[in-house]
């Protein structure tokens, strides 16, 4: 039988606020345990939550960016359950009336565009962390993370493959970073994903029994975990077995999913509106004023790159994946006008290769956009060849200096003086009489050999176009 995969994703994006969702404690990552948990985060008797306005603004921006409804009234609710790292015995979340309702995100799969529905996004506070190592059979609790603001973004079950799921996540990841509302760090848990996966016979419309996959902390693992889970479900159904609705943990080392301890199985969270917080009222004026603060979003930027710079959709997509990369590219282009394709090739080629090699992102680049632009200008004005430029770029990356100074110091200026090139060609021809004879007797492939020798002798500095032209004349005798 042919099966169709149905995936819905829940993403927890940690909002990049300075303080927590309901207290003034810092949200900075990596502090010693329990040093960033105030009275409110500790859930002491008598404390009360006060909503962080910045988190609300960020959630609204997100809502606007995905063309969702941000209702005039949303409500915080308590999700009640006991866990040692949940200090109040309930999590303040949103349940029936979330702050963002019904949006969408466009993804591109093999050059085809697909729209994925976003059911809702709601604000909630994070729990703390339980630490089970280093305490000799006891558990430690770190409440630094307790109360950190999260935006939980829930997609419709519109995704049909692991590949689509990853495309959606990358797009969402890019969007929250464009909006500057989440640092998107998967390793530190600022962008976490759970996947609801089910399968059904192709052509049917009812949903199959789903499993929820957790512990998916990289895009690669997400793809693998979903693929594993789909295969597992197919095998079960094809063997006449049933799928259990359950939460499964992905084990990256073994590349498998397995059922989680069923601690949450029969949980009734007893949601009810939090009486400590009034309904959240958002005025249309507030939203109207927020619209101009939104940055140009990935799709719009990609379209503009294709239109204004005549880039291919592939190039435009790559360059707009992050706002910083796009900004870098545009800074280069603005200094080297009229050559967007050259700029794009360098940013996507040599620059990206070095960034990847050193595991850096664009904001950590050793070569600034201005420096790269200067280098490209020297190619365009024939001061250096493309090949020399590549060497120079490495030198610049290694902080050896500015392009012009390096060209000067290392004497890398391209040789465009015909007399000088003539001399080199003559020398090459003289030194290779056999090859000359072969060439003249019809072995035209040897032309490349002569070009190579000339370039070598000129230490790569001879202008390749001139070399070609002059060499042709000389060789033909």
């Amino acid at each position, binding site marked *: 039988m042919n099966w169709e995969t149905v995936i819905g994703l829940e993403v927890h994006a940690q909002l990049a606020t300075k303080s927590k969702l309901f207290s003034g404690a810092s949200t900075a990552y990596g502090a010693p345990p329990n040093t960033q948990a105030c*009275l409110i985060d500790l859930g*002491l008797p008598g*404390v009360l*939550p006060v909503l962080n306005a910045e988190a609300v603004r960020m959630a609204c921006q997100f809502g606007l960016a995905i063309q969702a409804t941000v209702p005039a009234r949303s409500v915080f609710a308590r999700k009640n359950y006991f866990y*040692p790292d949940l*200090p109040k015995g309930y999590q303040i979340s949103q349940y029936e009336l979330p702050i963002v309702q019904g949006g969408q995100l466009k993804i591109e799969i093999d050059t085809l565009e697909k729209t994925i529905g976003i059911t809702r996004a709601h604000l909630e506070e994070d729990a703390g962390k339980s630490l089970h190592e280093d305490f000799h059979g006891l558990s430690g609790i770190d409440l630094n993370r307790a109360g950190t603001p999260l935006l939980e973004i829930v997609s419709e079950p519109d995704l049909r493959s692991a590949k689509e799921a990853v495309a959606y996540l990358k797009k969402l990841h890019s969007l929250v970073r464009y909006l500057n509302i989440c640092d998107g760090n998967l390793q530190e848990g600022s962008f976490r994903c759970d996947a609801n996966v089910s399968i059904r016979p192709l052509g049917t419309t009812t949903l199959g029994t789903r499993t929820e996959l957790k512990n998916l902390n990289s895009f690669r693992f997400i793809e693998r975990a979903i693929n594993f889970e789909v295969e597992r479900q197919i095998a079960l159904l094809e063997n006449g077995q049933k799928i259990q609705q359950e939460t499964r943990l992905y084990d990256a080392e073994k590349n498998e999913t397995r059922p989680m301890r069923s601690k949450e199985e029969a949980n009734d969270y007893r949601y009810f509106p939090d009486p400590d*917080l009034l309904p959240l009222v958002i005025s249309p004026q507030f939203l109207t004023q927020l619209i101009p603060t939104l940055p140009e979003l990935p799709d719009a930027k990609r379209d503009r790159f294709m239109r204004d710079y005549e880039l291919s959709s592939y190039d435009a997509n790559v360059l707009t994946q992050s706002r910083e990369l796009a900004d870098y590219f545009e800074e280069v282009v603005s200094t080297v006008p009229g050559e967007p394709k050259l700029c794009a090739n360098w940013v996507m080629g040599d620059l990206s290769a070095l960034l990847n090699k050193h595991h850096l992102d664009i904001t950590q680049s050793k070569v600034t956009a201005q420096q790269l632009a200067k280098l490209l200008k020297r190619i365009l004005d024939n001061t250096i060849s493309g090949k020399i430029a590549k060497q120079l770029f490495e030198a610049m990356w290694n902080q050896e200096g500015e392009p012009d100074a390096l060209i000067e110091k290392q004497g890398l200026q391209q040789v465009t003086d015909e007399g000088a090139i003539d001399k080199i060609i003559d020398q090459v021809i003289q030194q290779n009489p056999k090859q000359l004879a072969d060439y003249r007797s019809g072995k035209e492939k040897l032309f490349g050999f002569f070009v190579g020798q000339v370039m070598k002798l000129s230490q790569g500095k001879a202008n390749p176009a001139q070399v070609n032209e002059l060499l042709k004349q000389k060789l033909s005798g």
Partner: protein
Amino acid sequence: MHTQSIPQISAALQQGQLSSVELTQHYLNRIERYNPQLNAFITVTDELALAQAQAADKYLKNGTAGPLTGIPFAHKDIFCTQGLLTSCASKMLANFIAPYNATIVEKCQVAGLVILGKTNMDEFAMGSSNETSYYGPVKNPWDLQAVPGGSSGGSASAVSARLTPGATGTDTGGSIRQPSALCGITGLKPTYGLVSRYGMIAFASSLDQGGPMAHSAEEVAWLLNAIAGFDPRDSTSLEREPVDYSAQLNNNLQGLKIGLPKEYFGEGLDPAVDTLIQTALQELEQAGAELHSIELPNTPLAVPIYYIIASAECSSNLSRYDGVRYGYRCEEPQDLMDLYQRSRGEGFGAEVKRRIMIGTYALSAGYYDAYYLKAQQIRRLISNDFAQAFQKVDIIAGPTSPTPAFNLGEKFNDPVKMYLSDVYTIPVNLAGLPALSLPVGLIQQRPVGLQLIGNYFGEPKLLNVAHQYQQRTHWHQLTPTHF
């Protein structure tokens, strides 16, 4: 000294006829002498009180004192007091030293009030007789066989026996007004949101409101001036222009329309209480007020829905007491579930557990709509009843409690009967209105309280009416015989 009112003491302090240290020592002596009979205090803070009194005397001397500077005071043990035991009268918090001050405590300190100690109460403010306290029941100074009412029974008993000039209380379903009535003092539950809940240990967040308790309306007005006001740390606190609550005490009552809800004078009301209430109402009539019969038709629904809403909120609010971070933890827990079950099983008393269970049930999947949601809808109807009444009258009056103080143990094993003793006070919390109880007489040496209910932020009017009544009567000046 202890029969003087707060304004009288204040004048004596300001004029240097009396020092705060002398005064404070006097009250500490009275506490030492009488508290063993009454059990009104959980903690007495002698040293801190005297230190604060000394500081107050300095301010009184150098002219930087306010009207309340140097006056002794007590806080219900539900308010967090930095460095002091804050137990909420529960075994669960019998080891909890609060690391911060509640806003109300902070404001009292700023006003210069001297803290004598923390008063006893029903465990987590759940009770109407002060019999659910982990620290044992509080006695009513008018009759040691009688309950003082609850849950602010320690505060009411202490004020009544003149162990403190005033005290804070909290009122979720009548917990300031009912003990005030049963102990013969004046207590005010302010409009929901007028007094900050920050640092007040939550029972039912949408109903809880702190307020002052003292002998007279005038004293209550002085104290309210100190504790009312917007607090950015409480999201349900209301931002309003500050009001001087003592400014309108002397307005005359000519033409004041008082509504008498017929539901408050029907079945269940002790006829002797009814008689005293009628006498008090005649007194107000003579002072110029007009009496009008009104209807609050949804009153009978108030008690049942209160026990759904309050219990639902409490079941969630009390989840934090899990034995993990502070408070009571059972001996040698075997695993996490054992830690939870035994810490909570052993740390909470029976009434608290009963309400947690009711609330958990009411919020459970499949029951939420039928109980919690329905209760909230009825709550709106009850508010609407009051809104309609206030289109016709300025204030509403009736008994605070259907009976005078009952005997210790009398209703303890019949929770429904106990719950019904709050039938006249609960609707006010559901609507978030202000209400005050003032003493209007005695039945066999047990006091009776008149309840005055105002419209939102109608505290000045309530205090005005109560003060005018107290100008014409002496009930608020009585001291129980043996104190």
